[in-house]
């Protein structure tokens, strides 16, 4: 079991961001922290999570006092300090001082994930990020100096029209900054973001897809050369430094989420909390929980979701035997022809693990076309009950 804690506020909202995050305009953070702790007492008591991730939003926005209150509270309730093998705190450069870093370390944080995104002023500005390149470099340094065992940096590529040299420079600087993990995302246009609206209004053209592909492949190569293995579509890590918490998602292991809009997956249920911090707060105060929706996916839907997440791991793939245990469906039978034709086309392949378990993996070609693969595997009408019987 893993534990995720969501902190929904940011200093301001970035243009491309589709997370459940809100510009902070004076809301009571202390009340929020207390609500999370109250929720923890009702759903995460003595959870003893294997991994913990404090994400957002921008949890580094919390004052030292509130950070202290949150982490100590969580430790008391869930016992994570003893059980967790990896405890990550997300941070943004503008709110990650040396002092805060050091406090976080003392409170049991083992891994820092920094939202760097770019080291170019013009790019940061276009994204409406609040920090500048200098603050980004300082934050990277702070993480090193305080001595975190693990540190990740987030970067975004495919800024439209950018000179590729600028990207390669950013990438090399960050890879050489002492981090052991890198998330490099292609800029994407998610429904509902300011960026997507600009794009649709013709005021922000997307980068040409051929350029995107070149950047994507070049990035994988550069990371490889710097000793960062690509273990997921956008994630690279030095040996042994892959993010255990995120692997929980990709492997469809269970997790409990606390906070506004947080998601949980355990005992066959997908649970989502109320996304608005105000609603969340009010409901927690009344009832101790703030569930918006709780659903039990059908076996077919679940199997698809297991593939959707698992195929993102190019070396490992999806453990079909484990998937069968969870869903009582045999993937080869369930997906039938579409799957066999993907295997024939060598976009997917089957492998056998050391314990004779079967794995389904994307090939080199298929890996770049994962969405296409998923579209072909997606049952025509996913509301219909599992098609297993036929």
């Amino acid at each position, binding site marked *: 079991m893993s534990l995720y804690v969501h902190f929904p506020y940011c200093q301001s909202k970035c243009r491309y961001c589709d997370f459940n995050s809100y510009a902070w305009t004076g809301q009571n953070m202390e009340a929020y922290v207390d609500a999370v702790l109250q929720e923890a007492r009702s759903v995460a008591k003595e959870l003893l999570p294997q991994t913990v991730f404090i994400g957002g939003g921008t949890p580094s926005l919390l004052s030292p006092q509130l950070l202290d209150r949150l982490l100590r509270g969580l430790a008391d309730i869930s016992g994570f300090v003893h059980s967790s093998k990896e405890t990550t705190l997300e941070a943004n450069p503008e709110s990650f001082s040396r002092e805060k870093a050091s406090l976080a370390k003392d409170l049991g944080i083992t891994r820092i994930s920094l939202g760097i995104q770019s080291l170019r002023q013009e790019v940061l500005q276009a994204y409406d990020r609040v920090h500048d390149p200098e603050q980004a470099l300082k934050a990277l340094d702070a993480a090193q100096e305080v001595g975190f065992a693990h540190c990740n940096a987030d970067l975004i590529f495919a800024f439209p029209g950018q000179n590729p040299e600028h990207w390669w420079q950013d990438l090399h600087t960050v890879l050489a900054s002492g981090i052991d993990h890198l998330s490099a995302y292609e800029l*994407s246009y998610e429904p509902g973001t300011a960026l997507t609206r600009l794009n649709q209004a013709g005021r922000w053209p997307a980068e040409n*897809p051929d350029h995107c592909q070149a950047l994507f492949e070049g990035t994988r190569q550069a990371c490889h050369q710097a000793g960062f293995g690509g273990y997921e579509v956008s994630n690279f890590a030095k040996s042994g430094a892959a993010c255990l918490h995120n692997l929980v998602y*990709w492997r469809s292991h269970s997790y409990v989420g606390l906070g506004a809009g947080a998601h949980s*997956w355990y005992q066959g249920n997908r649970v989502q909390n109320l996304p608005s911090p105000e609603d969340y707060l009010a409901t927690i105060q009344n009832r101790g929980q703030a569930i918006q929706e709780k659903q039990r996916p059908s076996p077919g839907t679940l199997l698809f979701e297991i593939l959707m997440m698992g195929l993102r791991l190019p070396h490992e793939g999806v453990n079909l035997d484990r998937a069968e245990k969870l869903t009582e469906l045999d993937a080869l039978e369930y997906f039938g022809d579409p799957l066999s034709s993907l295997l024939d086309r060598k976009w997917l392949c089957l492998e056998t693990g050391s314990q004779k378990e079967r794995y389904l993996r994307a090939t080199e070609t298929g890996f770049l*076309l994962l*969405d*296409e693969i998923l579209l072909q595997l997606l049952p025509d009408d996913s509301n219909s009950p599992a098609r297993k019987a036929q």
Partner: protein
Amino acid sequence: MSETFPRERIRNFSIIAHIDHGKSTLADRFLEITGAVDTRKRAEQMLDSMDLEKERGITIKAAAVALQAKIDGEDYLLNLIDTPGHVDFSYEVEKSLQACEGALLLIDAAQGIQAQTVANALLALEQEMTVIPVFNKIDLPHARPEEIAEELEHVLLLEKESALPCSAKTGKGVEELLREIVRQVPAPQGDPDKPLRALIFDAKYDEYRGVVVYLRIIDGVIRKGDSVHMLGTGRDYDVLELGKFTPKPKPFKSMGPGEAGYLISNIKRLGDVKVGDTITLTKGERAEPLQGYREPQAMVWCGIYPTNSGDFENLRSALETLKLNDSSILFEPESSDALGFGFRCGFLGLLHMEIVQERLERESDLDIVQTAPTVPYEVQFLEGESQVIHSPGELPDSNEYQEIREPVVTTSILVPDFGIGPVMKLCADRRGVFLRQDHLSPTRVMLVWDMPLAEIIFDFYDKLKSATRGYGTMNYDEPRFEASRLVKVRIMVSGVEADALSVICHTDSAQKRGRAILRKLQKEIPRHQFQVALQAAVGGKIIARENIRALSKNVTAKCYGGDITRKRKLLEKQKEGKKRMKSLGRVEVPQKAFLAVLSTDE
């Protein structure tokens, strides 16, 4: 009220103007000051009853209403018809004017005389009816009635002193207008003792009551219960209900000369009634038919296909339902390799087409694909007979015909002087032939060109607006067919001919058009797992080619965090979108691409 209204105290008039000059708003004021609607229940453009009219703020169908007013102590019956201003619906104006003795020619006092002001004024003047010019919107700070008075005299040869100022918005001058209507518009002619003669000036379909016939009595008297005979269609009907729009329909027992209203008679289909027909009594002496109307011509055609091929019959019944309300829509079944079975539909113009499409989607909940609009062409075969075709697909091989003729319209374009240069160039570029130029005022000019209609429907209006900073307006007349050097540009997608994408255009612009279509397709068709070749050809000759490169990467960048359901739903949405695409061979083409033929840029 059972008695007919005394003829001397009836006035029949239309309100005509350029689009948006305030006709419907003025009608609102008339309704209010005559007490037809309660001022507390006032709304805007009350006679625009269709949802689409309300949303778009334009009048599409003429609306008739009977008002009773006391003027200088006398009771008058005023039959008013509010007409549309847009060029596509000038047929509505024509119909309305024939039921009237007078017209209020509204002119926006800030904008001045515009293209449809001229066109509609000429329609009224040709009928030798009383035309009262009205300067509307005098409340606007930039109203310039003096200058416009000069234009009026110069362009329409109407005395500038005859114009009346008003503001339909504030109501200023509106009472005075009513008084002038009564003074200037002649009472209708007509003899109650003669055999019945009534003009059908409009008809509409009512879900519950069948066809509602709008009629104007010329001679004689019509009574509820009469058996009437329609001279044009030869059909007989019993008058079940007779009445006037006040603006709510209000039954009357009888109507006499000069009166206008409606008739209901269990008529099932709008097609059974001919607008312009003459109504007489079945028994007794037959009256002479009145001069009818010309049939409106469908000038723009496009293919309409159901996205889901199983919906063909649903589309047919949806079109039939629309036609009940709008007899100017034409449609005939056609099939396309790419799109399957659908209909070739004819419209009065581009706006009309857009409106029908919107109503189809809205009122029938059907997903449709529309192909790019085209004008009709006349093909002259070698053997001497000729045929009108409505789609590029129907054009025979070039060795089978002698010539193709295309519709050409005389187009009046009103522009501010700074727009003359760009507009002249635009018209010349679009194969226009310059006829003349008239100065309306020192700063405004009317340019008259003969233009191929195909060039006008091909984004001409947008270009005109941008060449004149939005000030240019235009109007065109009935088309005539003239021979021209036209060819069919065929489009091939991965070697498969896409009949629904082919266009007819002038030889000289074939290559440019072909290339523009391919570029547009290149943008609209998503990448496939293989390279897609696009070609344009005239006859057997390839005149342009482009490629869509193979898809080699399609993977969501960011997929972590616990919200798994949302990610799956995004994929499901994408899959839905794919299902709605049409396939040309192995290539999936989104619906938008079928309109690719429409734009010129890039």
